[in-house]
């Protein structure tokens, strides 16, 4: 697959065109990724509605049956269920790390094994999220797919 990037200052927003001779698995992956990256999630903060781009989300959490979305410095509440968000954003590199948390691997700095046998994901803003070992394979698979793109 060749990647051609062209700067065009006349555009108001980035435009992605995928030219293919055959709609193969890798072409679909790139297409799903672009669709997911451009996704926006509707959420609320202090009774105001916001549309948060997926690329700005660091992680999402479910606490007391309420969904929370975390960006670099803000926290929003969402009516969407974590399962629904996970499915919608899986193409954009979001992966479940525990029963109540989904992270964006683009914001992942690394995984650390703690002395008490717990695991934690360290994000690029140094925030730490508990990781359950059952999801390590999924995290690895998402990273492998991302590195192939």
């Amino acid at each position, binding site marked *: 697959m060749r990647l051609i990037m062209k700067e065009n200052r006349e555009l108001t927003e980035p435009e992605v065109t995928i030219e293919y001779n055959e709609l193969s698995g890798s072409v679909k992956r790139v297409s799903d990724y672009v669709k997911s990256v451009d996704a926006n999630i509707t959420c609320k903060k202090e009774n105001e509605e916001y549309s948060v781009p997926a690329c700005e989300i660091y992680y999402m959490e479910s606490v007391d049956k309420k969904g929370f979305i975390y960006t670099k410095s803000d926290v929003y509440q969402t009516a969407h269920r974590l399962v629904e968000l996970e499915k919608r954003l899986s193409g954009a590199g979001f992966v479940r790390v*525990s*029963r109540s948390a989904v992270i964006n*691997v683009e914001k*992942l*700095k*690394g*995984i*650390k*094994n703690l002395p*008490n*046998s*717990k*695991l934690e994901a*360290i994000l690029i803003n140094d925030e730490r999220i508990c990781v*359950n*070992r*059952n999801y*390590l*394979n999924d*995290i*690895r698979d998402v*990273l*492998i797919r991302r*590195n192939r793109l």
Partner: protein
Amino acid sequence: MKKTIINIFAMTGITLVALSMIAFFYNATMLCLNTVFQALGVNILIYSGIKLISKLEISLSLLETGIKLIYTILLVIVFGYFFSWYDNLPFPVLIAFTVFILIICELLDMLNLKIKIKEINDLIGNDI
């Protein structure tokens, strides 16, 4: 599924080797075929139970380990009664043997975990 089967057979292999060592200590000269299948059957149940307990995602890791240990020991006690293991093996030895197998499996699991974490950190490109 493939990994599950491999893990169960690995546990069964470790069980039979450890059992052979204990049998050798008691001057035994052979293991019965029944024992092989009994070990396989019990290991299938142990592995399945431990997987289910892991899915509960208990926040305290010590508590999770304790539950897994109690579950395994209870299973061995019950099957020991049904398969008449106590005729050939003293009860404390059987329990110690079970704990030993669990420790081996836990050590292997920890090693596997370290490998997975390293792989993930390499894919990210960071060394944490």
